[in-house]
């Protein structure tokens, strides 16, 4: 009987100690998580992906009524502008017919010139279209969660684009969902150039509405409204994908207004450009 009482006392003391130190343990755990995350630990990545697979379907169910309401509201709003939109679309269609004819001629000319120059055609891109199911937009991260179905072609690092241009890059892939870090997310860095002047720079996300354009040459001649496209350096993005336009210029660089309205994305294309990784190529060359 006495032994039991002593054991009980010990146990309750132990429980109290655990309770007291639990918060400290959790803080330590936070730093361990962050350290492992920084080192791209495979176990953490796998656990996080599995947990995401469980949580995201519930979010998707919750999104349904909200998106129905939003679509209804959008429809009612669009009814007001439908006449003006119709007129604008007719004009645009007329312009596009002319542009299409010009493009066809250019395409033929391009093919002939490429043949003359012995130009090596890059591999054809492979893509899937994915539905946006969740969105994150805080001071800490800007991302999208998309439904990719039972698709095993999607891989980390692939490019996410929409009809207007680059949206972001695949950050995490699960068996049915993928997380995309948007171009304004803090760890997004894309090599870009100004379409007209071909001046190169780096587009860096800052978790702000618009990403920054930095590492520009000192004599770079920038103008507000200049179109920004991908430069193709780095091996992930091909040359010429539209990114946005210069929105403001300061001493340290410029701000880029994304070509897409990142807050209104419903579907994105995840593209595999099958571009060779320059780092690996160099490594292979060195080995040979």
């Amino acid at each position, binding site marked *: 009987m006495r032994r039991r009482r002593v054991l009980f006392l010990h146990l309750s003391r132990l429980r109290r100690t655990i309770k007291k130190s639990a918060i400290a343990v959790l803080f330590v755990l*936070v730093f361990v998580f*962050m350290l492992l995350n920084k080192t791209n630990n495979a176990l953490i990545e796998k656990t996080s992906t599995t947990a995401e697979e469980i949580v995201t379907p519930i979010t998707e169910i919750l999104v349904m009524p909200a998106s129905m309401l939003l679509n209804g509201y959008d429809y009612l709003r669009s009814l007001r502008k439908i006449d003006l939109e119709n007129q604008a679309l007719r004009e645009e269609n007329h312009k596009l017919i002319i542009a299409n004819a010009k493009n066809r001629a250019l395409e033929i000319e391009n093919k002939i010139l490429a043949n003359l120059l012995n130009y090596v055609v890059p591999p054809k891109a492979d893509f899937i279209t994915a539905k946006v199911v*969740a969105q994150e937009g805080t*001071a*800490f*991260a800007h991302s*999208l969660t998309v439904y990719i179905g039972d698709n095993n072609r999607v891989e980390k690092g692939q490019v996410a684009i929409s009809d207007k241009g680059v949206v972001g890059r695949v950050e995490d892939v699960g068996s049915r969902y993928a997380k995309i870090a948007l171009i304004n997310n*803090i760890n997004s860095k894309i090599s870009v150039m100004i379409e007209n002047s071909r001046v190169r720079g780096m587009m860096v996300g800052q978790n702000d*509405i618009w990403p920054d354009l930095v590492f520009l040459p000192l004599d770079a001649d920038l103008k507000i409204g200049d179109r920004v496209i991908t430069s193709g350096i780095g091996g992930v993005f091909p040359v010429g994908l539209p990114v946005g336009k210069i929105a403001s210029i300061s001493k340290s660089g410029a701000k880029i207004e994304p070509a897409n309205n990142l807050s209104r994305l419903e579907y994105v294309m995840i593209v595999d450009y099958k571009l060779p990784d320059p780092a690996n190529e160099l490594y292979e060359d060195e080995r040979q």
Partner: protein
Amino acid sequence: MREGWHEALTNWLLRWLPLFVSILWLMISFIPLKSELSANARPMLGLMCVYFWSAYRSDLFSLMSIFILGVISDVLSVAPLGIYLFMYLIMYLSVIKISKYVNEKTFEMLWIGLAVLLPVPMLSGWLLTSIYYADFLPLKSLLFSYLISVALYPIFGGINAVIINKCLQDEN
């Protein structure tokens, strides 16, 4: 025997109800709302949940609940893993510290309390994330998130209060 089992399950569900409700709020905060504001500055619903339940029913919202909520938030986000858990723990500690001095838990008092306490975990999270990326995060969206969170608290708190009144009244 059957009634006992049923009762045990109901008690278990009620015990974890604050966590289930918080997870639901958290998922709502990830719904795409197709607006410029919501895509850049969302209310910190997870932090608001930790604040609300730690202040009203800390007996039903333990460290385990905070851990689960934090991990789910981190999993759903592309922010560094652990950052939301860190902010929730800071919020929990702040509420515990303040609850010793504040006995009157009226709705207005708690609203003011949120306005005062919310910057603590948010700025701590901001600082830790800035250190992680070795780059300062914008304070503008943090400020907007804060303002939206404080402005939405009456709706959020009202719904949670209804849940307390309807489901957790007997537990009081």
